[in-house]
């Protein structure tokens, strides 16, 4: 190290550079939001970063989607690996490779080297979720894929601009492999411009502060974050914490949930996450490659350090061990487009472990991300009949220590993501929303209940050849409570065929299901898991929830043992029957452990007979069934009960 590198910047220059790096990436975000084409980007599924000349991340945008955190430096480094000796001012490269640290094919990153004169000083990167990247399913989410070949176009590092000249041959080749080439070219322009915004800012800083100081600042902002994280970690007690969460199934294997084990160790100022015991890759797209797994760990941890800026100084602090070829360390060509499923499991498990260490920020499990994809011919528009869309819904987040969970919020993988308006969807696609509102009784019961989920029901209008696919999870690994709190409810989609009037449960994952005009599809999203024993919830809070219709009078009694009398619903006049409440609570207290250990096949029978519903099954009896037929999922139930014992029963008095 020469003298230049060891000498600290003065505090003012340091603070100014640090904030200016962040302002530069915020300016990139502003540019993208205003010029993007893909609706997914418009709804804020994007991120931007500045990198040093080695590809390390210096700053990431304040409002960037969580899921990209901790992956941008990998893709930048892969671009460097490929173009190392052949980079020029005015170049822009593209990459979307999940096997090189990217997330999934839909997230396409444009990377621009920044030169001061002929010296490479850093990179700017703009990453956006494009609406389509080809493959056999509209939107490039092919649930049935086992390998990437049926999923989408894989872009290993390519050159999109060469010394400022737009390489239309490469851009067109990529666009030609998608369902929406015009928009793809538009997004390339939008993102390439965003990277230029950051280049301009870095060069301005160099002009003002000199190259050496700016490069020094790039190093120091990383050191600064590392120092802050180390400080906080060394303030925590040493120890080891472990937990497990599950993906619902491996469609290529029998019934039984797919475990992801995490063991976290804090020692001094170091922290490691060991995934030993996690399941091998599965035969669906619900696998995660190394980069995405790393991102999930960082995103989960960052939730407990919300004020710290994100850059490679943070990332250096995190060490990960994962068994080879597991569901969290998939390699080419295993399909990984559904990586968000393991991602959210990792994130929630990290929530659970950190909740013990930092109880003032404790939080139970959040609902699971879900996507509905549809495509076909819109008979209302003979001139442009092909349509495709996908939409995602918000749901509830977990109950907290001293606070109910956050109601109707975007999935935890990306809290910046916005939900879509029904009016926009109805205008563009042949569907009509019949209902889109809060789902009564979806919050997981607890002393502090989970946040509420929603329900959306839509009818297909005049359309031909329409197929729908659904990407979700936690139909079996149901959203769980902690500290004695209860689960929410199973995810899954139900279809009602207009010709026969028949209703069918299609569950949380299926692809290319054919539907006809007039068919109606309905899906709820779960609420968050409950925090703390629901029998300890203040009856006055339960009463308020009933008045607002988050909780029904019936479930107030079943889940909370709070008996509420309706005096005049129109006037919102309800009251708690204290004597009956006391009686109901003692009855539940006396029996609940027995219910939760009851013979699962007897529970299955009660469900088949219509005596209990799915909320009773998961909250009271801790049993996982095929929610359509009522058949018992024996292995899944055993796995679910094991965690229920630990997260709920063990905390009941």
């Amino acid at each position: 190290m020469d003298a230049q590198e060891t000498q600290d910047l003065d505090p003012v220059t340091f603070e100014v550079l640090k904030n200016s790096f962040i302002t530069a990436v915020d300016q990139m975000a502003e540019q993208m939001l205003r010029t993007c084409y893909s609706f997914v980007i418009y709804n804020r599924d994007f991120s931007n970063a500045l990198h040093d000349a080695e590809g390390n991340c210096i700053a990431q945008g304040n409002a960037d989607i969580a899921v990209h955190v901790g992956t941008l430096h990998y893709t930048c480094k892969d671009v460097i690996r490929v173009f190392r000796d052949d980079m020029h001012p005015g170049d822009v490269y593209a990459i979307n490779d999940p096997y090189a640290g990217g997330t999934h094919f839909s997230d396409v990153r444009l990377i621009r080297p920044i030169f001061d004169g002929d010296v490479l000083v850093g990179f700017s990167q703009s990453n956006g979720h494009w609406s389509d990247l080809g493959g056999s399913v509209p939107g490039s989410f092919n649930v049935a894929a086992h390998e990437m070949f049926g999923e989408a176009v894989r872009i290993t590092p390519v050159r999109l601009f060469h010394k400022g000249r737009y390489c239309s041959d490469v851009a067109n080749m990529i666009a030609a492999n998608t369902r929406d080439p015009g928009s793809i070219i538009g997004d390339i322009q939008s993102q390439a411009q965003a990277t230029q915004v950051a280049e301009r800012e870095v060069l301005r800083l160099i002009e003002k502060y000199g190259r050496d100081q700016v490069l020094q600042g790039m190093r120091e902002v990383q050191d600064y974050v590392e120092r802050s994280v180390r400080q906080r970690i060394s303030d925590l007690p040493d120890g080891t914490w472990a937990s497990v969460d599950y993906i619902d199934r491996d469609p290529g294997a029998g019934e039984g949930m797919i475990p992801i084990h995490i063991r976290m160790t804090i020692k001094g100022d170091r922290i490691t996450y060991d995934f030993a015991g996690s399941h091998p890759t599965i035969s669906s797209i619900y696998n995660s490659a190394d980069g995405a797994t790393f991102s999930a760990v960082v995103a989960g941890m960052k939730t407990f350090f919300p004020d710290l800026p994100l850059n490679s100084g943070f990332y250096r602090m995190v060490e990960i061990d994962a068994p080879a070829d597991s569901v969290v360390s998939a390699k080419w060509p295993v399909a990984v487009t559904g990586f968000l499923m393991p991602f959210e499991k990792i994130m929630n498990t990290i929530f659970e472990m950190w909740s013990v260490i930092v109880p003032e920020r404790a939080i139970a499990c959040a609902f699971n991300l879900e996507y509905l994809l549809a495509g076909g011919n819109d008979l209302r528009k003979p001139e442009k009949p092909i349509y495709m869309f996908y939409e995602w819904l918000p749901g509830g987040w977990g109950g907290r220590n001293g606070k109910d969970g956050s109601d109707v919020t975007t999935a935890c993988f990306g809290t910046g993501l916005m939900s879509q308006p029904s009016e926009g969807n109805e205008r563009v696609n042949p569907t009509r929303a019949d209902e889109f509102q809060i789902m009564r009784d979806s919050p997981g019961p607890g002393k502090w209940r989970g946040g509420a989920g929603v329900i959306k029901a839509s009818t297909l209008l005049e359309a031909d050849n329409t197929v729908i696919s659904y990407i979700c999870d936690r139909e079996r690994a149901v959203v769980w409570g902690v500290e004695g709190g209860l689960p929410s409810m199973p995810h899954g989609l139900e279809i009602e065929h207009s010709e026969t009037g028949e209703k069918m449960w299609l569950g949380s994952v299926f692809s290319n299901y054919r539907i006809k005009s007039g068919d109606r599809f309905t899906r709820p999203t779960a609420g968050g898991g409950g925090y703390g024993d629901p029998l300890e919830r203040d009856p006055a809070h339960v009463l308020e929830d009933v008045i607002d219709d988050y909780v029904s009078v019936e479930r107030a009694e079943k889940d909370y043992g709070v008996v509420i009398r309706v005096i005049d619903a129109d006037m919102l006049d309800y009251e708690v029957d204290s004597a009956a409440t006391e009686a109901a609570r003692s009855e539940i207290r006396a029996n609940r452990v027995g219910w939760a250990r009851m013979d699962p096949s007897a529970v299955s029978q009660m469900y088949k007979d219509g005596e209990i519903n799915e909320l009773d099954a998961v909250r009271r009896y801790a049993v996982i069934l095929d929610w359509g037929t009522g058949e018992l999922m024996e292995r899944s139930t055993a796995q679910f009960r094991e965690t229920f014992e630990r997260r709920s029963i063990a905390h009941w008095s």
Partner: protein
Amino acid sequence: MPSTRVAVDVGGTFTDVCIMDEDTGQIRIEKTPSTPDDPMRAIITGIDDAGVNLADVTMFSHGTTVATNALITRKLPRTAMVCTEGFRDVVEIRRSNKEDLWDTYKDVAKPYIPRRDRLTVPERIDAAGKVLADLDEDEARRVAGILKRRGVEAVAVCFINAYVNGQNERRMKEILQEVMPNVHISISSQIMPEIFEHERFSTTMVNAVVSPVVVDYVSRLSDKLRDGGYGRDLLLLHSGGGVMTPASVKDFAARLAGSGIAAGAIASRFIGNLCGYRNSIGFDMGGTSTDVSLAFEGESTVTKDWFIEFGYPIRFPSIEVLTIGAGGGSLAWRDEGGSLRNGPQSAGAHPGPACYSNGNEVATNSDANVVLGRLGTSLAGGDITLDPALAEKAVRETVAVPFGMELHEAAEAIIDVANANMANAVRLLSISRGHDPRDFALVAFGGAGALHGAAVARELSIPVVIVPPNPGVTSAMGCLLVDIQHDFSDSFMADAATTAPEDLEAAFAKIEAEALERLRHEDVAPENTVLQRSVEMMYMGQWRSLAVTAPARITSTEDLVASFHSQHEREYNFRREEAPVSIFRVGVKATGVVPKAELPSYEVRPQTPEAKGPREVWFGGAPLTASVYERSDLGAGAAFTGPAIVEQLDSTVVVPPGAVATVDTYLNIVIKVEG
């Protein structure tokens, strides 16, 4: 007594009454402590203290925080919403995003209307405007009956797709009016007829909840003024930068949200224009925060993406103001990573900076300015005395010792970080929108604006800083400088290539008729009526539109498309000549021009002003001898160079070394900071 104009700006601490003599243009200011429980009291006190005879007043305009405060404090009358069956929760589902992405304990506030008071009725319009189901009138009456029993004071009616067809909403309103004749009713198809249910419902909800509050306030104030002899309409400043009369407040109460903040931007634009700078940046720095605004080619930039509370957009056009947590009272601190930070925490008005001697011991920007000699120790004409020893102690303990710096070095470090943060805010509003700061003037006002303005300008390469005569009360002046203004818009979703000029003319004819009717309603004479058209467009497939100015008579759609390409290139640095362009919306800004009084001007006599004394002031790590001037001694034509300090009742102006200051004909100090 000569005719006068009165403008009142109600702030959190003070209510400023600004009185202008119509003949001479002379302005005087009466400052009165605000009375937040009923802001009207301070207004009346101020008028009385200033000796204004309301019978002589020809124009009374008012920027009010009543709507904003009601929303922030949630002191709102019970309000209900009636929605389409199945869509009770649009305003609670929102877009489901969070303001703070990472803090899981920080929630978005609940909607202004709680779930229990959101009821539904069967009805449905489809995306093309076809009625799929008429309003179920029996249910509508039942719902109206329930709301009547509950005693709600206002109702928002929000139906899906009402932006294309408001028929069912209008029928619902009639039924509600039959049952509850005295209740305020806002319907989404009238308030904000644009696509996307949450944004429309939210705007309508805000309008409904503030209606009773605002209408009551405005009618009480109107009555009071009329009793005092004022014979014209009370004019109320709205977020869009114009004023409206009580007749319109009844229908568009939510336009008054953000009223207070617009005044500073208007004043700044006006002063910039007055000095010949049609591009200007307003830099209004107070005790706890700084408001930044921008005027380009003489017009304030306007946004439709704003809110009082995150998650509840108000889609009425609003002057764009970026507020950041940096002010005179912002605290300097060292974080755990060892970085020197500035704000957003503030010592506020109480206890205030350390030098106020009220118990705060942490260094603030004001303390650093005292240590550097930039801020004198006697303020407000001697009413406030600052203690330099306490300022030194705070700077020493908070920054100098922890960072191993000399005292003055530490003070300068505090100021430099604050200035850089503020410069970054200006960058977000200017550079990231394609504006080059070198083409702008910075108008520095507010209590602390002129202390920091020159340094911020230098940081951004802005060549000129303008300090108006009364920086501390500039916002009140903004209220004097306004026209009656309303904004109307309508959806117009079409491919530009297949849109004939006649189609656009037909769309404009509809909203222009509405606009003219509105101005007639406000007694604007036809010769004072101005309509400005705009067309919002985007490249087909994009998600955000750009508003392009359209001529009063459209003869060619291609010309509009050409303007769009140019504007897209200016703002975003690229154009796609070959890509199809779509039209999203048409809009009309309807202005009823209010004759402006002239500000007083003075003969410019080049002169070297006399300093009231020298003072040691630190710049760039060295103590320099600066001349200290009294603002009232500086006549038009006075010229001096930095380092210099100008002191006045409500502000202090810093002229850094190398900068040249001159006093113009309106007594603005114009500082050329280059060099």
